[in-house]
């Protein structure tokens, strides 16, 4: 039996692929698979980006109530009473604490294991490999100005603009601006053959039209870019930022110990879908970067024993190991290029002979 299991799940990546397949099916097609109400139950337990606009899915994005509460509840009451009362803040905090609860267990793993948009981008990148596109990494210099964008999106589009809309300083149509530009809304609904979200609102106000244009430009860009750039949207995703807040307190996390060989190596960063340089150059807390999606690829491709670990509390769920690494790079390069199997076997034989 364990042998069978090894055949089906030979690597951590394969295991993650199977989990993604399941969560993808549930969050995008959940309504069809398990019935709409059951799907809704499941999806209310997931934090976000299983888009609420997708009518057949089980998905329910936590960014929806966050924006709504900013708009309707906090905004409206602040406008009336000019102060935030406990009564107002508690419901906001309920949404937020559901996140935190989720994060205290799964941590940042939502991104690499559950998020349907993350999965779509990953599959598109694999498709790009098949189509023969070269990989375009995001260099450390670019990351420096790209990283703050997700915090601005979180702060601006999820919190501030909806709040201003509630207060009456922004148009009412600005009540959930993040949803209005979210590529997940367009991509996941398209996957259920629903084109309503791809269509742009031309009959509403200019603000909606503008957001609609931004949304479609972004979604189109993300879909095409994902063929060459790993996880292009994730770089500016507000969920990545929101997840990052509690990452060190979460049970599931990434750990790296200092290692002398790291200086000359850097395979982990090459394997990282978020091109995180810190996993190469830092260790301890600082190696677990705000951009990490807990995919575990760095640990898979680190050629040294026990340097990078995926941990659940004190338990190491997966630990980098030389033997595993050797097996892993036979099938795939750290950058995700799939190797033709035959040639690899040959060179192995040659090695044995020589």
């Amino acid at each position: 039996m364990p042998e069978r299991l090894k055949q089906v799940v030979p690597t951590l990546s394969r295991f993650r692929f199977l989990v993604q397949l399941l969560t993808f099916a549930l969050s995008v097609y959940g309504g069809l698979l398990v019935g709409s109400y059951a799907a809704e139950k499941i999806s209310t337990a997931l934090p976000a980006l299983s888009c609420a606009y997708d009518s057949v899915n089980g998905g329910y994005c936590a960014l929806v109530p966050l924006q709504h509460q900013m708009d309707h509840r906090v905004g409206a009451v602040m406008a009336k009473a000019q102060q935030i009362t406990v009564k107002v803040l508690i419901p906001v905090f309920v949404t937020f604490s559901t996140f935190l609860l989720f994060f205290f267990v799964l941590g940042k793993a939502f991104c690499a294991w559950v998020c349907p948009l993350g999965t779509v981008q990953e599959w598109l990148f694999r498709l790009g490999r098949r189509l023969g596109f070269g990989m375009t990494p995001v260099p450390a210099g670019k990351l420096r100005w790209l990283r703050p964008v997700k915090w601005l999106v979180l702060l601006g589009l999820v919190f501030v603009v909806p709040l201003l809309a509630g207060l009456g300083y922004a148009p009412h149509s600005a009540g959930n601006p993040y949803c209005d530009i979210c590529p997940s809304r367009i991509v996941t609904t398209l996957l259920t053959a629903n084109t309503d979200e791809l269509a742009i609102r031309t009959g509403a106000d200019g603000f909606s039209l503008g957001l609609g244009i931004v949304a479609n430009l972004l979604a189109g860009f993300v879909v095409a870019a994902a063929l060459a750039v790993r996880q292009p949207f994730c770089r500016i995703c507000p969920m990545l930022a929101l997840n990052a807040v509690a990452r060190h307190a979460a049970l599931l996390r990434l750990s790296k110990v200092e290692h002398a060989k790291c200086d000359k190596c850097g395979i982990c960063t090459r394997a990282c879908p978020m091109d995180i340089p810190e996993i190469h150059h830092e260790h301890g807390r600082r190696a677990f970067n705000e951009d990490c999606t807990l995919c575990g690829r760095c640990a898979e491709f680190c050629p040294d024993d026990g340097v990078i670990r995926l941990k659940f509390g004190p338990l190491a769920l997966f630990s980098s190991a030389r033997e595993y690494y050797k097996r892993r790079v036979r099938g795939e390069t750290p950058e995700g290029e799939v190797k033709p199997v035959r040639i690899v076997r040959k060179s192995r034989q040659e090695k044995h002979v020589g």
Partner: protein
Amino acid sequence: MATTWSSDALLRVTMSRGEAPGMRVKASVGDFDQVVLQTPEAPAPVVLAQGKDGWTVSKAQMGTGGHLWFIATRENEREVVRATTYFFFPARHQVPTEMLRAPRGGLEIVPLRLQEHGGTREGSRWRFLLRHDNQPLPGHLLTLETEGGTRQQFMADADGVAEVSFPRDFTSERLNAKEGMNARQEFVLSLDHVSGGKRFLTTYNQSYNPDRMRERSLALGVGVFALGMVFAVPLLRRKEKKNA
């Protein structure tokens, strides 16, 4: 207030916020002997108190939110009239399937799924189980009447399930009103049945919204999406062959 577009009694539920939170249920025409409320959390029917201005639901009876199912009944020796509706307010709630399907007796229009989050739009399809004394009514006709002036009938299949497709009949005044795509029109479904020398008349009323595509352009959407893809082209290079 009576409606001009249907002679059936419509139940209208309003939520009062502020000082005394609660709800009020009113019937558009006629009087009812009693109105009961069921929720998935408290599925046993609760008889509502009748005031001078309709029936009232206290804060405790409202429960935690989600799906509230109202049944108003009036009965004499000749006929049994039953009006039903449902009210949704977002909160932590349980799934209503079991509560809706639970045997109740009498003539019923049972929604197989309740229309939360404004899901009932022009052009959308919703399924209803028609049954009398808990037995499905295959081949029976369910009549839809809408505020937009549509009158249409839908026949139940072999399982007694009728699929209602909502017409595109929003009036231009409604569409041009400030609410835009959040505009509402009422509809009522009615089912007539004679059994044991008695006439049974059951209705279910609620509201629906305009088709969102009325204010959207798919062509523009596809065009802008394609333009977005074009912007990503500089990132797409052919793989360089490594020399070695």
